[in-house]
């Protein structure tokens, strides 16, 4: 397939849509191929700001970009409208430092994140750190927003942050993702644990137990969908739940993306997967009924038959 002048001009616009554009399978939060995920990971590590184009959603872009870049695979990274390469090349340039230079990542000053440590957490952290000769308290937030609080030697690029008299060293690449974090020390089943609240964390499927879901349904403001197929729905169903069939999908498409949505299935596995899909589709407030209709029958409404 050869591109016409006009098509070339269109692709030129796409690759210049912002300073850094990544043509990939999936998106930044949900890469759908290992090579794309690797490049996203590297760009995130560098704290680069970039735009992604999901080529799986558009066959014309997928075919056209192969031609435009003279490159048959994805991901494809563009910086300043210039093709940089695929996964191998990006990895290579990252380890040699060329990518950092290209993205101007070194020039960007890293801001110290704002971190709040509660009094209880400070006491526990001081105690934990007291036995660690030479090591420091470190915090790293990976590109998936998993927090890792640990005691280790101070690393290059660490930024020292103080709160409640505790010195915490935040990995430089994490600083943006760590900004605004609150660290507390709370009761959990079986003891005490650190609780890290990160306001930057992207929405996740929130687990909810049957009685809490019942209370939310009674209060209104949440929509419950049943992701099971018809044969299972015939055996047992929850009165408030709408099946996620054609009609349910239609209703879903009309809902505000910030509307609270709960999903259930038999035991909570299929509905969790469906919830991840809703997040991908842009919904931000998605709950999964833990234990599914089974838990509903056990904890809320015994008249719902179990199967």
């Amino acid at each position, binding site marked *: 397939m050869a591109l016409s002048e006009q098509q070339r001009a269109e692709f030129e616009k796409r690759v210049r849509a912002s300073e850094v554009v990544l043509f990939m399978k999936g998106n930044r939060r949900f890469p759908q191929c290992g090579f794309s995920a690797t490049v996203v990971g590297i760009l995130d590590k560098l704290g680069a700001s970039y735009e992604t184009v999901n080529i799986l959603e558009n066959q014309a872009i997928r075919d056209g970009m192969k031609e435009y870049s003279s490159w*048959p695979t994805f991901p494809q990274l563009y910086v300043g409208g210039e093709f940089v390469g*695929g996964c191998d*090349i990006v990895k290579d340039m990252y380890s040699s430092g060329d990518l950092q230079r290209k993205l101007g990542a070194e020039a960007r000053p890293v801001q110290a994140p704002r971190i709040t440590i509660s009094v209880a957490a400070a006491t526990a952290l001081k105690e934990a750190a007291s036995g660690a000769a030479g090591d420091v308290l470190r915090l790293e937030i990976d590109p998936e927003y998993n927090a890792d609080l640990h005691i280790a030697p101070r690393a290059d690029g660490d930024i020292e942050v103080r709160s409640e008299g505790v010195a915490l060293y935040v990995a430089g690449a994490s600083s943006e993702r760590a900004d605004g974090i609150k660290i507390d020390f709370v009761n959990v089943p079986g003891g005490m644990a650190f609780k890290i609240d990160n306001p930057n964390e992207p929405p996740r499927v929130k687990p909810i137990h049957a009685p809490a879901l019942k209370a939310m349904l009674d209060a209104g403001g949440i929509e419950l969908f049943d992701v099971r197929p018809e044969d299972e729905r015939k055996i047992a169903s929850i009165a408030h739940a709408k099946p996620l069939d054609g009609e349910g999908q239609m209703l879903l498409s009309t809902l505000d993306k910030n509307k609270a949505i709960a999903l259930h299935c038999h035991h909570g596995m299929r509905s969790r997967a469906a919830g991840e899909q809703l997040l991908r589709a842009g919904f931000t407030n998605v709950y999964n009924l833990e234990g599914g209709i089974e838990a509903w029958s056990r904890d809320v409404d015994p008249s719902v038959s179990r199967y």
Partner: protein
Amino acid sequence: MSDHPTDFAGDVCAAIRDAIKAKIPGARVEVTGGGGHYAIDVASAEFTGKTMLASQRIVYGAITHLMSGERAPVHAVDRLTTKAQ
């Protein structure tokens, strides 16, 4: 080895090797893999003084016809190395 539907009949590794050698005469080419996924190592004087991007482009250019379309014999190149010699 994953199952990968293709209309291509014959030895895909050999087809990749032949296509690259036709484009870069005298190149040493090693191809391994199957099921749509291949690893390719190429050594040639052709790559001397060229960037990794330019070198890989030459190789990809040689096998584009094996990689286009949903039922292409080559679904992914898991590893591509180009060595100047």
